[in-house]
């Protein structure tokens, strides 16, 4: 038998692809995230009887839908060892460009233009980072400002109202099988992102690019394409998330999404993605956005001031991130 024909049959005894005691191999970060989530749910139900009601679950999920979708894109970017600070700029520019087509009365055109603009911003980021080798922090910091500036310039600073574009508004306000559309999208895109990272051939290429870009290159992985792709996805996610928020409020605000990049980044790192690249998961990110969503929901229900909420959020992030650090220490 030549070694070339290996791929055909399974040889016993096979080594496990996953550890038998999988839970032992869960990172402490993942465990502490899960623990915090469970504790929050229990605590929430204890202090607010309606906490686990379907309506409140919808409220929580709706509140995190946009940030979660943006965080999916951000997670992919962070796994490749890059960062995308431009998401708020991409979101607002996309929504405004789409909004300029409102007078056409065609929701398809508006939605298409919005997503396309997000794609273009993402591709521009990707090209500047991957092809020219400029650090992504700088590129996306630049495109954040450029995106916001262009959004103002093309809209003349005017808010836009997608009134009457029912398909557009449906994205933010509609329901699908009794579930709000943004939540459906959060779940579907989450599943797609999980499929992309874990069940597609793009997944290993993604982690390899972030884990060791030279090795990836020398193994024939097109790292430029990988990077451009993740930035493009992040741009589209940002545009989509921006559109969901705009549709929910039926209002495109050229000054919107202030500081969104840092909130999304916070969710992403809370989800276990390491800014050094090669590490991170969509499930972690989703858990993290739920944690943030529940914390905010509970604090609002308790009537805690928004300013203390910021402090609490910061503490929660540290509480989840710190235990995972120790583990990495030991592993070294």
């Amino acid at each position, binding site marked *: 038998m030549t070694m070339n024909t290996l791929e055909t049959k399974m040889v016993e005894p096979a080594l496990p692809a996953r550890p038998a005691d999988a839970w032992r191999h869960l990172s402490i970060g993942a465990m502490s995230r899960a623990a915090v989530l469970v504790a929050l749910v229990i605590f929430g139900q204890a202090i607010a009887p309606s906490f686990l009601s379907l309506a409140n679950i919808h409220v929580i999920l709706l509140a995190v839908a946009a940030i979660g979708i943006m965080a999916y894109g951000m997670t992919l970017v962070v796994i490749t060892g890059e960062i995308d600070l431009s998401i708020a700029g991409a979101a607002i520019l996309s929504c405004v460009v789409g909004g300029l087509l409102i007078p056409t009365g065609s929701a398809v055109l508006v939605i298409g233009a919005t997503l396309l603009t997000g794609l273009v911003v993402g591709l521009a980021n990707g090209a500047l980072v991957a092809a020219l080798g400029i650090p992504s922090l700088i*590129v996306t910091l630049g495109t954040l400002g450029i995106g916001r*500036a262009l959004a103002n310039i093309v809209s003349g600073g005017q808010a836009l109202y997608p009134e009457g574009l029912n398909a557009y508004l449906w994205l933010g306000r509609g329901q699908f099988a009794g579930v709000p559309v943004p939540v459906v999208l959060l779940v579907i895109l989450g599943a797609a992102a999980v499929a992309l990272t874990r069940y597609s051939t793009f997944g290993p290429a993604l982690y390899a690019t972030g884990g060791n870009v030279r090795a990836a290159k020398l193994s024939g992985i097109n790292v430029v394409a990988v990077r451009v792709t993740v930035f493009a996805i992040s741009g589209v996610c940002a545009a989509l998330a921006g559109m969901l928020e705009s549709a929910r409020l039926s209002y495109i605000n050229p000054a919107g999404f202030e500081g969104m990049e840092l909130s999304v980044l916070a969710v992403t790192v809370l989800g276990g993605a390491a800014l050094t690249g090669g590490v991170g998961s969509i499930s972690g990110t989703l858990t993290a956005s739920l944690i943030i969503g529940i914390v905010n929901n509970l604090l609002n229900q308790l009537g805690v001031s928004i300013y203390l909420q910021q402090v609490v959020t910061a503490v929660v*992030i540290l509480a989840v991130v710190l235990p995972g650090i120790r583990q990495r220490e030991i592993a070294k």
Partner: protein
Amino acid sequence: MSAIQLSSPSASRVIPFLLDLARDPIVWLIALIFVVGAMTSQYYLTTLNLENLMRNVAVIGLLSLGMTVVLLTGRIDLSVAALMIFSIVVGVVVMTEIAPLIGSRWLVRGNTYAGPIVPVILIALTTGAAIGAINGIGVAYFKVASFIMTLVSLTALRGFNYVLTDGHPYYLKAPLYQWIGDSKFAGIPVSFLLFLLVLLVLIGFVNGTVRGGRFYAIGGNEKAALYAGINTRRYVVLAYVISGLCAAIAGIVFTARLKSVDAPLAAGYELTAIAIAVIGGTALSGGIGSPWRTLLGSVAFAAGLNLLAIWGVGTWYQNLAIGIVLIASVGLSKMSRKKSKS
């Protein structure tokens, strides 16, 4: 070792330094801005405008200086802008809390702080250093990624600023404060002189001393520094303390100009500070850059914006310009480095 003489006559270093300077694109950029400014507006080179320019440089320059030191170690400090406000807020709040204990009242006519200002400044500096130390300890000893640690600080400090002030402004109208904010010394704004002083101290420390040089070693290869017996964690903490102190001094200069402090001030300035350090040539990956180059970066940044303002260019287009210049400056330096390498 002891036999070795210090034999570096300063003259021998000045000339190559000037030659280097002449080759530096950022110097030409600054010169170009001033020439174009002088040619296109009669107001550009007026004393008043130059003073404005220097005052603008002072605040953003101080923030960027601290950022530069942290970036040299290969880390980042997102908390600088929030900290700059927080340190002053703490200074005032602590003093107003102390006042009743010693039977005086330092908060008069609404929220005007009328107590002694020197303790406020000292508390602000201490707060800046302390928060810097907390950031540093989190990063160096608890191994939290600097981006996360300082993002957490940023969020928490912004929240605390509101919680501590209840959203009220504090007015700061002491003569010393006024002097820092508005006065000139030998024709140069005091705030700018303060910035120059910090700059000189930092150049002296970072580029002149053995200890300061270790920031470069840590940024270049942290393991190498560790193996060389350097207590890298202590230096990382030191870098954050310096950044915190710079933020507090920036806060003093900033609020002295506004003669008040308010929770939401200076939102987003952390990103400006990063942009300036990077325009000045500091590498995000660490080990490359210097306080001196950050001076050039902040002058280029402030002079450019000042020119656009003199021209009356709208803010949106200014922002567009900042974004493009940021990407282009780093992109061009990257390409020129590539070229010189190959």
